[in-house]
Protein backbone atom coordinates (compact mmCIF):
# COMPACT_ATOMS: atom_id res chain seq x y z
CA UNK A 1 0.00 0.00 0.00
CA UNK A 2 1.08 3.57 -0.64
CA UNK A 3 1.35 5.94 2.33
CA UNK A 4 -1.36 8.39 3.40
CA UNK A 5 0.92 11.35 2.78
CA UNK A 6 1.69 10.11 -0.75
CA UNK A 7 -2.00 9.83 -1.50
CA UNK A 8 -2.61 13.38 -0.29
CA UNK A 9 0.24 14.68 -2.44
CA UNK A 10 -1.20 12.95 -5.48
CA UNK A 11 -4.68 14.36 -4.79
CA UNK A 12 -3.22 17.86 -4.55
CA UNK A 13 -1.18 17.54 -7.71
CA UNK A 14 -4.01 16.08 -9.81
CA UNK A 15 -6.15 19.01 -8.73
CA UNK A 16 -3.45 21.60 -9.33
CA UNK A 17 -2.30 20.28 -12.70
CA UNK A 18 -5.57 19.00 -14.17
CA UNK A 19 -8.46 20.39 -12.10
CA UNK A 20 -9.86 16.99 -11.10
CA UNK A 21 -10.69 17.14 -7.41
CA UNK A 22 -10.53 13.83 -5.54
CA UNK A 23 -10.14 15.58 -2.19
CA UNK A 24 -13.59 14.52 -1.00
CA UNK A 25 -13.42 10.88 -2.04
CA UNK A 26 -13.59 8.23 0.69
CA UNK A 27 -9.97 7.52 1.53
CA UNK A 28 -10.18 3.79 2.25
CA UNK A 29 -11.30 2.92 -1.27
CA UNK A 30 -9.24 5.61 -3.03
CA UNK A 31 -6.05 4.46 -1.35
CA UNK A 32 -6.62 0.86 -2.50
CA UNK A 33 -7.37 2.02 -6.03
CA UNK A 34 -4.30 4.24 -6.31
CA UNK A 35 -2.07 1.51 -4.85
CA UNK A 36 -3.54 -0.87 -7.39
CA UNK A 37 -2.53 1.28 -10.44
CA UNK A 38 0.82 2.04 -8.87
CA UNK A 39 1.72 -1.68 -8.69
CA UNK A 40 -0.13 -2.62 -11.87
CA UNK A 41 1.97 -0.16 -13.87
CA UNK A 42 5.18 -1.46 -12.32
CA UNK A 43 6.23 1.59 -10.31
CA UNK A 44 8.73 1.13 -7.47
CA UNK A 45 9.05 4.67 -6.14
CA UNK A 46 6.19 6.98 -5.50
CA UNK A 47 7.99 10.06 -6.84
CA UNK A 48 8.36 8.37 -10.25
CA UNK A 49 4.65 7.70 -10.31
CA UNK A 50 3.91 11.24 -9.21
CA UNK A 51 6.11 12.86 -11.84
CA UNK A 52 4.60 10.65 -14.55
CA UNK A 53 1.14 11.82 -13.51
CA UNK A 54 2.25 15.45 -13.44
CA UNK A 55 4.02 15.50 -16.79
CA UNK A 56 1.97 13.11 -18.90
CA UNK A 57 -1.70 14.08 -19.34
CA UNK A 58 -2.40 10.79 -21.13
CA UNK A 59 -1.08 8.88 -18.17
CA UNK A 60 -3.09 10.98 -15.75
CA UNK A 61 -6.20 10.12 -17.73
CA UNK A 62 -5.31 6.45 -17.54
CA UNK A 63 -4.81 6.73 -13.82
CA UNK A 64 -8.19 8.38 -13.32
CA UNK A 65 -9.84 5.72 -15.48
CA UNK A 66 -8.21 3.06 -13.32
CA UNK A 67 -9.00 4.52 -9.92
CA UNK A 68 -12.70 4.93 -10.61
CA UNK A 69 -14.57 1.71 -9.90
CA UNK A 70 -16.58 0.79 -12.97
CA UNK A 71 -18.00 -2.58 -11.99
CA UNK A 72 -21.63 -2.73 -13.08
CA UNK A 73 -24.25 -5.11 -14.47
CA UNK A 74 -27.59 -5.12 -16.24
CA UNK A 75 -30.62 -5.16 -13.96
CA UNK A 76 -28.34 -5.02 -10.90
CA UNK A 77 -30.56 -5.73 -7.87
CA UNK A 78 -33.58 -7.07 -9.76
CA UNK A 79 -36.05 -6.11 -7.02
CA UNK A 80 -35.08 -2.48 -7.56
CA UNK A 81 -35.89 -2.78 -11.26
CA UNK A 82 -39.11 -4.57 -10.47
CA UNK A 83 -40.23 -1.58 -8.41
CA UNK A 84 -39.24 0.78 -11.22
CA UNK A 85 -41.18 -1.29 -13.71
CA UNK A 86 -44.29 -1.84 -11.64
CA UNK A 87 -44.62 1.40 -9.70
CA UNK A 88 -42.50 4.21 -11.08
CA UNK A 89 -42.82 3.84 -14.86
CA UNK A 90 -46.64 3.87 -14.80
CA UNK A 91 -46.47 7.19 -12.92
CA UNK A 92 -43.93 8.65 -15.33
CA UNK A 93 -45.98 7.33 -18.27
CA UNK A 94 -48.66 9.94 -17.68
CA UNK A 95 -46.23 12.70 -18.70
CA UNK A 96 -45.81 13.94 -22.28
CA UNK A 97 -41.99 13.53 -22.05
CA UNK A 98 -39.84 11.54 -19.68
CA UNK A 99 -36.38 12.85 -18.91
CA UNK A 100 -34.01 10.48 -17.13
CA UNK A 101 -30.46 11.07 -15.89
CA UNK A 102 -28.06 8.20 -15.17
CA UNK A 103 -25.29 9.88 -13.15
CA UNK A 104 -22.20 7.66 -12.95
CA UNK A 105 -23.48 5.31 -15.65
CA UNK A 106 -20.14 3.51 -16.10
CA UNK A 107 -20.19 1.25 -19.19
CA UNK A 108 -23.93 1.73 -19.63
CA UNK A 109 -25.48 -1.58 -18.56
CA UNK A 110 -27.85 0.35 -16.31
CA UNK A 111 -28.94 2.61 -19.18
CA UNK A 112 -29.67 -0.28 -21.55
CA UNK A 113 -31.64 -1.98 -18.77
CA UNK A 114 -33.74 1.14 -18.41
CA UNK A 115 -34.27 1.42 -22.17
CA UNK A 116 -35.50 -2.18 -22.29
CA UNK A 117 -38.02 -1.51 -19.54
CA UNK A 118 -39.19 1.72 -21.16
CA UNK A 119 -39.61 -0.07 -24.46
CA UNK A 120 -41.66 -2.82 -22.87
CA UNK A 121 -43.83 -0.20 -21.15
CA UNK A 122 -44.37 1.54 -24.51
CA UNK A 123 -42.64 4.69 -23.23
CA UNK A 124 -39.25 4.69 -24.92
CA UNK A 125 -40.39 6.83 -27.86
CA UNK A 126 -41.19 9.75 -25.56
CA UNK A 127 -38.20 9.33 -23.24
CA UNK A 128 -34.71 10.71 -23.27
CA UNK A 129 -31.90 9.12 -21.28
CA UNK A 130 -28.93 11.29 -20.36
CA UNK A 131 -26.05 9.15 -19.21
CA UNK A 132 -22.96 10.73 -17.71
CA UNK A 133 -19.73 9.70 -16.05
CA UNK A 134 -16.40 11.27 -15.10
CA UNK A 135 -14.57 8.50 -16.97
CA UNK A 136 -14.46 9.11 -20.73
CA UNK A 137 -13.38 5.56 -21.60
CA UNK A 138 -16.38 3.86 -20.06
CA UNK A 139 -18.64 6.25 -21.97
CA UNK A 140 -17.16 4.96 -25.24
CA UNK A 141 -18.15 1.41 -24.29
CA UNK A 142 -21.56 2.64 -23.19
CA UNK A 143 -22.14 4.31 -26.56
CA UNK A 144 -21.27 1.15 -28.43
CA UNK A 145 -23.75 -0.98 -26.47
CA UNK A 146 -21.39 -3.93 -26.73
CA UNK A 147 -20.98 -6.09 -23.64
CA UNK A 148 -19.14 -9.37 -22.99
CA UNK A 149 -21.24 -12.36 -23.92
CA UNK A 150 -20.10 -14.34 -20.87
CA UNK A 151 -22.14 -11.99 -18.66
CA UNK A 152 -25.34 -12.39 -20.64
CA UNK A 153 -26.64 -15.44 -18.82
CA UNK A 154 -26.54 -13.58 -15.49
CA UNK A 155 -28.16 -10.56 -17.10
CA UNK A 156 -30.94 -12.70 -18.57
CA UNK A 157 -31.59 -14.11 -15.08
CA UNK A 158 -31.62 -10.63 -13.57
CA UNK A 159 -33.94 -9.48 -16.35
CA UNK A 160 -36.41 -12.22 -15.55
CA UNK A 161 -36.17 -11.58 -11.81
CA UNK A 162 -36.94 -7.93 -12.50
CA UNK A 163 -40.25 -8.89 -14.11
CA UNK A 164 -39.08 -9.15 -17.72
CA UNK A 165 -41.14 -11.53 -19.82
CA UNK A 166 -39.74 -11.25 -23.31
CA UNK A 167 -37.04 -13.37 -24.82
CA UNK A 168 -33.94 -11.50 -23.62
CA UNK A 169 -31.93 -12.63 -26.63
CA UNK A 170 -34.19 -10.53 -28.89
CA UNK A 171 -32.45 -7.44 -27.56
CA UNK A 172 -28.95 -8.17 -28.85
CA UNK A 173 -26.94 -9.88 -31.52
CA UNK A 174 -24.20 -12.22 -30.36
CA UNK A 175 -20.91 -12.16 -32.22
CA UNK A 176 -17.30 -13.12 -31.40
CA UNK A 177 -17.86 -13.30 -27.64
CA UNK A 178 -19.77 -10.04 -27.48
CA UNK A 179 -23.40 -9.04 -27.37
CA UNK A 180 -24.30 -5.92 -29.32
CA UNK A 181 -27.54 -4.40 -28.10
CA UNK A 182 -30.02 -3.18 -30.68
CA UNK A 183 -29.75 0.36 -31.99
CA UNK A 184 -33.40 1.05 -31.34
CA UNK A 185 -32.54 0.90 -27.63
CA UNK A 186 -29.75 3.45 -27.84
CA UNK A 187 -31.54 5.95 -30.11
CA UNK A 188 -32.82 7.88 -27.11
CA UNK A 189 -29.56 7.90 -25.18
CA UNK A 190 -27.25 10.89 -24.87
CA UNK A 191 -23.82 10.23 -23.39
CA UNK A 192 -21.52 12.89 -22.05
CA UNK A 193 -18.72 13.43 -19.62
CA UNK A 194 -19.89 15.12 -16.42
CA UNK A 195 -18.06 15.40 -13.11
CA UNK A 196 -20.38 15.35 -10.11
CA UNK A 197 -17.73 17.12 -8.04
CA UNK A 198 -17.37 20.21 -10.19
CA UNK A 199 -20.04 20.38 -12.91
CA UNK A 200 -23.47 21.90 -12.44
CA UNK A 201 -27.02 20.90 -13.16
CA UNK A 202 -27.78 20.81 -16.90
CA UNK A 203 -31.48 20.05 -17.18
CA UNK A 204 -34.60 19.17 -15.22
CA UNK A 205 -35.39 15.48 -14.84
CA UNK A 206 -38.26 13.24 -13.85
CA UNK A 207 -36.02 10.43 -12.69
CA UNK A 208 -32.38 10.52 -11.62
CA UNK A 209 -30.44 7.33 -10.99
CA UNK A 210 -27.12 7.55 -9.21
CA UNK A 211 -26.36 4.08 -8.00
CA UNK A 212 -23.18 2.98 -6.28
CA UNK A 213 -21.40 6.25 -6.93
CA UNK A 214 -21.97 8.12 -3.65
CA UNK A 215 -20.26 5.31 -1.71
CA UNK A 216 -16.96 6.64 -3.09
CA UNK A 217 -17.60 10.12 -1.67
CA UNK A 218 -17.29 11.46 1.88
CA UNK A 219 -20.33 12.85 3.73
CA UNK A 220 -19.75 16.45 2.64
CA UNK A 221 -19.48 15.63 -1.02
CA UNK A 222 -22.50 13.32 -0.77
CA UNK A 223 -24.46 16.26 0.60
CA UNK A 224 -23.35 18.53 -2.24
CA UNK A 225 -24.20 15.96 -4.89
CA UNK A 226 -27.63 15.23 -3.40
CA UNK A 227 -28.30 18.96 -3.54
CA UNK A 228 -27.21 19.02 -7.17
CA UNK A 229 -29.77 16.28 -7.84
CA UNK A 230 -32.38 18.20 -5.90
CA UNK A 231 -31.76 21.21 -8.16
CA UNK A 232 -32.08 18.96 -11.20
CA UNK A 233 -35.27 17.15 -10.21
CA UNK A 234 -38.81 18.22 -11.11
CA UNK A 235 -41.39 18.25 -8.33
CA UNK A 236 -42.88 14.73 -8.09
CA UNK A 237 -39.74 13.37 -9.75
CA UNK A 238 -37.79 10.41 -8.37
CA UNK A 239 -34.26 9.94 -7.13
CA UNK A 240 -32.87 6.40 -7.06
CA UNK A 241 -29.67 5.38 -5.26
CA UNK A 242 -27.82 2.10 -4.69
CA UNK A 243 -29.20 -0.41 -2.19
CA UNK A 244 -26.80 0.69 0.58
CA UNK A 245 -26.95 4.44 -0.01
CA UNK A 246 -29.23 6.98 1.61
CA UNK A 247 -30.23 10.67 1.41
CA UNK A 248 -31.00 10.61 5.14
CA UNK A 249 -27.92 12.59 6.19
CA UNK A 250 -27.98 14.93 3.22
CA UNK A 251 -31.29 16.67 2.77
CA UNK A 252 -34.43 17.65 4.65
CA UNK A 253 -36.70 14.65 4.99
CA UNK A 254 -39.83 16.78 4.67
CA UNK A 255 -39.05 17.38 1.01
CA UNK A 256 -38.64 13.73 0.03
CA UNK A 257 -40.72 10.66 0.63
CA UNK A 258 -39.17 7.22 0.41
CA UNK A 259 -40.89 4.97 -2.08
CA UNK A 260 -41.64 1.36 -1.16
CA UNK A 261 -38.72 -0.48 0.43
CA UNK A 262 -36.24 0.44 -2.26
CA UNK A 263 -33.76 3.32 -2.21
CA UNK A 264 -36.10 5.49 -4.25
CA UNK A 265 -37.30 8.88 -3.05
CA UNK A 266 -39.96 11.14 -4.48
CA UNK A 267 -39.56 14.89 -4.35
CA UNK A 268 -42.82 16.07 -2.84
CA UNK A 269 -42.20 19.79 -2.78
CA UNK A 270 -39.96 22.47 -4.26
Amino acid at each position, binding site marked *: *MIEDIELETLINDVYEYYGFDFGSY*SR*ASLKRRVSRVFYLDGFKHFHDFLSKVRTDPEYCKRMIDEITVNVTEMFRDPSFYLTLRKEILPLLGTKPFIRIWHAGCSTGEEVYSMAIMLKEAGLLHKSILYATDINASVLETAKSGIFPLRMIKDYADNYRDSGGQQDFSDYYIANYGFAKFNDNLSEKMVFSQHNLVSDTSFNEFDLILCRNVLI*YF*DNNLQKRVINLFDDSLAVLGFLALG*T*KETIKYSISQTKYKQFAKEKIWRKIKE
Partner: protein
Amino acid sequence: MEENKRIKDCKVVIIGGSAGSLQALLQILPFVEKTISFAIVIVVHRKNTDEQTLEDLIALKAKLKVKEVEDKVKLEAGFIYIAPSNYHLLFEKNETLSLDTSEKINYSRPSIDVSFESAAEIYTNHLIGILLSGSNSDGTVGLKAIQAAGGISVVQNPLSADMPYMPNNAILHTTPDFVLKTEEILEFIKEINQE
Protein backbone atom coordinates in the same frame (compact mmCIF):
# COMPACT_ATOMS: atom_id res chain seq x y z
CA MET B 1 -3.39 -18.47 26.55
CA GLU B 2 -0.34 -16.27 26.41
CA GLU B 3 -1.34 -13.50 28.78
CA ASN B 4 0.98 -10.98 27.20
CA LYS B 5 -0.87 -11.28 23.94
CA ARG B 6 -4.18 -10.11 25.34
CA ILE B 7 -5.39 -6.74 24.17
CA LYS B 8 -6.52 -4.39 26.88
CA ASP B 9 -8.00 -1.74 24.70
CA CYS B 10 -9.77 -3.56 21.90
CA LYS B 11 -12.14 -1.47 19.79
CA VAL B 12 -13.11 -3.90 17.07
CA VAL B 13 -13.38 -7.65 16.74
CA ILE B 14 -13.63 -8.61 13.10
CA ILE B 15 -14.75 -12.11 12.21
CA GLY B 16 -14.34 -13.67 8.77
CA GLY B 17 -15.77 -16.92 7.52
CA SER B 18 -17.15 -18.81 4.59
CA ALA B 19 -18.81 -22.21 4.18
CA GLY B 20 -19.70 -23.64 7.59
CA SER B 21 -19.07 -20.42 9.50
CA LEU B 22 -22.70 -19.65 10.24
CA GLN B 23 -22.85 -22.63 12.57
CA ALA B 24 -19.86 -21.33 14.52
CA LEU B 25 -21.29 -17.81 14.63
CA LEU B 26 -24.51 -19.17 16.07
CA GLN B 27 -22.56 -20.98 18.77
CA ILE B 28 -20.75 -17.80 19.71
CA LEU B 29 -22.81 -14.65 19.15
CA PRO B 30 -25.93 -15.50 21.21
CA PHE B 31 -23.75 -15.74 24.33
CA VAL B 32 -21.92 -12.44 23.99
CA GLU B 33 -23.21 -9.84 26.45
CA LYS B 34 -24.74 -6.54 25.39
CA THR B 35 -22.31 -4.62 27.57
CA ILE B 36 -19.17 -5.34 25.51
CA SER B 37 -16.89 -2.36 25.02
CA PHE B 38 -16.04 -3.05 21.37
CA ALA B 39 -17.84 -3.48 18.06
CA ILE B 40 -18.17 -6.82 16.26
CA VAL B 41 -17.88 -6.80 12.48
CA ILE B 42 -18.74 -9.90 10.48
CA VAL B 43 -17.55 -10.58 6.95
CA VAL B 44 -18.82 -13.82 5.50
CA HIS B 45 -19.20 -15.09 1.97
CA ARG B 46 -22.74 -15.82 0.91
CA LYS B 47 -25.04 -15.92 -2.07
CA ASN B 48 -26.58 -12.63 -3.18
CA THR B 49 -29.99 -14.16 -2.84
CA ASP B 50 -29.99 -14.78 0.92
CA GLU B 51 -29.31 -11.09 1.57
CA GLN B 52 -31.52 -10.61 4.63
CA THR B 53 -31.56 -14.08 6.16
CA LEU B 54 -28.13 -13.92 7.81
CA GLU B 55 -28.90 -10.56 9.43
CA ASP B 56 -32.31 -11.76 10.56
CA LEU B 57 -30.96 -14.98 11.99
CA ILE B 58 -28.20 -13.29 13.95
CA ALA B 59 -30.49 -10.48 15.11
CA LEU B 60 -32.93 -13.07 16.35
CA LYS B 61 -30.37 -15.08 18.33
CA ALA B 62 -27.95 -12.44 19.62
CA LYS B 63 -28.36 -10.26 22.68
CA LEU B 64 -26.41 -7.57 20.86
CA LYS B 65 -28.21 -5.41 18.33
CA VAL B 66 -27.39 -5.79 14.66
CA LYS B 67 -26.89 -2.41 12.97
CA GLU B 68 -27.72 -2.34 9.29
CA VAL B 69 -24.61 -1.54 7.30
CA GLU B 70 -25.36 1.36 5.03
CA ASP B 71 -22.56 3.36 3.51
CA LYS B 72 -20.77 5.62 6.09
CA VAL B 73 -22.52 4.12 9.12
CA LYS B 74 -20.73 4.95 12.37
CA LEU B 75 -19.00 2.06 14.12
CA GLU B 76 -20.05 1.89 17.79
CA ALA B 77 -19.21 -0.42 20.66
CA GLY B 78 -21.88 -2.92 21.63
CA PHE B 79 -23.24 -3.54 18.14
CA ILE B 80 -22.83 -6.17 15.45
CA TYR B 81 -22.20 -5.06 11.85
CA ILE B 82 -22.55 -7.50 8.97
CA ALA B 83 -20.95 -6.84 5.59
CA PRO B 84 -23.69 -6.69 2.92
CA SER B 85 -23.35 -9.09 0.00
CA ASN B 86 -21.79 -7.84 -3.21
CA TYR B 87 -19.81 -4.99 -1.60
CA HIS B 88 -16.37 -4.87 -0.04
CA LEU B 89 -16.49 -3.42 3.46
CA LEU B 90 -13.85 -0.81 4.32
CA PHE B 91 -12.90 1.20 7.42
CA GLU B 92 -12.43 4.97 7.44
CA LYS B 93 -10.33 7.10 9.79
CA ASN B 94 -13.39 8.80 11.26
CA GLU B 95 -14.63 5.39 12.48
CA THR B 96 -17.27 4.96 9.81
CA LEU B 97 -17.66 2.03 7.45
CA SER B 98 -17.71 2.50 3.72
CA LEU B 99 -18.61 0.24 0.84
CA ASP B 100 -16.96 -0.46 -2.49
CA THR B 101 -18.12 -2.52 -5.46
CA SER B 102 -14.71 -3.06 -7.03
CA GLU B 103 -13.57 -6.40 -8.49
CA LYS B 104 -13.91 -9.58 -6.45
CA ILE B 105 -10.83 -10.64 -4.50
CA ASN B 106 -10.29 -14.38 -3.94
CA TYR B 107 -13.48 -14.86 -5.96
CA SER B 108 -15.29 -13.03 -3.20
CA ARG B 109 -17.11 -9.77 -2.57
CA PRO B 110 -17.08 -9.06 0.32
CA SER B 111 -13.53 -10.31 0.63
CA ILE B 112 -12.24 -11.09 4.12
CA ASP B 113 -8.70 -10.04 3.18
CA VAL B 114 -9.89 -6.63 2.01
CA SER B 115 -11.82 -5.91 5.22
CA PHE B 116 -9.12 -7.32 7.52
CA GLU B 117 -6.42 -5.22 5.82
CA SER B 118 -8.53 -2.11 5.96
CA ALA B 119 -9.44 -2.64 9.63
CA ALA B 120 -5.78 -3.31 10.47
CA GLU B 121 -4.78 0.00 8.98
CA ILE B 122 -7.27 1.98 11.04
CA TYR B 123 -7.44 0.02 14.31
CA THR B 124 -3.81 -1.24 14.50
CA ASN B 125 -3.28 -2.75 17.97
CA HIS B 126 -6.90 -2.23 19.01
CA LEU B 127 -8.07 -4.96 16.71
CA ILE B 128 -8.68 -8.69 16.95
CA GLY B 129 -9.27 -10.74 13.81
CA ILE B 130 -10.93 -14.14 13.96
CA LEU B 131 -11.02 -16.52 11.02
CA LEU B 132 -13.59 -19.29 10.97
CA SER B 133 -14.56 -22.25 8.81
CA GLY B 134 -14.47 -22.07 5.02
CA SER B 135 -13.26 -23.76 1.88
CA ASN B 136 -11.42 -20.85 0.29
CA SER B 137 -8.09 -19.18 1.04
CA ASP B 138 -9.55 -15.72 1.75
CA GLY B 139 -8.57 -14.30 5.14
CA THR B 140 -4.97 -15.49 5.40
CA VAL B 141 -3.42 -12.35 3.95
CA GLY B 142 -5.75 -10.25 6.09
CA LEU B 143 -4.73 -12.01 9.29
CA LYS B 144 -1.10 -11.33 8.45
CA ALA B 145 -1.90 -7.64 8.01
CA ILE B 146 -3.68 -7.55 11.37
CA GLN B 147 -0.67 -9.03 13.14
CA ALA B 148 1.76 -6.78 11.31
CA ALA B 149 -0.21 -3.75 12.50
CA GLY B 150 -0.03 -4.95 16.11
CA GLY B 151 -3.41 -6.65 16.40
CA ILE B 152 -4.20 -10.21 17.45
CA SER B 153 -5.05 -13.06 15.13
CA VAL B 154 -7.26 -15.95 16.11
CA VAL B 155 -7.99 -18.99 13.95
CA GLN B 156 -10.71 -21.52 14.55
CA ASN B 157 -9.23 -24.90 15.31
CA PRO B 158 -9.64 -26.79 12.02
CA LEU B 159 -10.80 -29.84 13.99
CA SER B 160 -13.82 -27.90 15.21
CA ALA B 161 -14.48 -26.23 11.85
CA ASP B 162 -17.10 -27.55 9.48
CA MET B 163 -14.84 -26.76 6.55
CA PRO B 164 -11.21 -26.85 7.71
CA TYR B 165 -9.57 -25.51 4.55
CA MET B 166 -9.70 -21.81 5.41
CA PRO B 167 -8.37 -22.09 8.99
CA ASN B 168 -5.79 -24.65 7.84
CA ASN B 169 -4.55 -22.33 5.15
CA ALA B 170 -4.11 -19.54 7.71
CA ILE B 171 -2.22 -21.84 10.07
CA LEU B 172 0.00 -22.98 7.23
CA HIS B 173 0.93 -19.49 6.06
CA THR B 174 0.86 -17.42 9.25
CA THR B 175 1.59 -17.89 12.92
CA PRO B 176 -1.74 -17.16 14.56
CA ASP B 177 -1.66 -15.86 18.12
CA PHE B 178 -4.39 -18.32 19.04
CA VAL B 179 -5.90 -21.44 17.52
CA LEU B 180 -9.15 -22.08 19.36
CA LYS B 181 -12.11 -24.41 19.26
CA THR B 182 -15.52 -22.82 18.83
CA GLU B 183 -16.32 -22.80 22.58
CA GLU B 184 -12.89 -21.39 23.31
CA ILE B 185 -13.48 -18.55 20.88
CA LEU B 186 -16.56 -17.60 22.88
CA GLU B 187 -14.55 -17.64 26.14
CA PHE B 188 -11.83 -15.61 24.46
CA ILE B 189 -14.34 -12.96 23.36
CA LYS B 190 -15.83 -12.79 26.86
CA GLU B 191 -12.35 -12.02 28.24
CA ILE B 192 -11.64 -9.13 25.89
CA ASN B 193 -11.02 -5.83 27.73
CA GLN B 194 -11.63 -7.52 31.09
CA GLU B 195 -9.13 -6.86 33.89
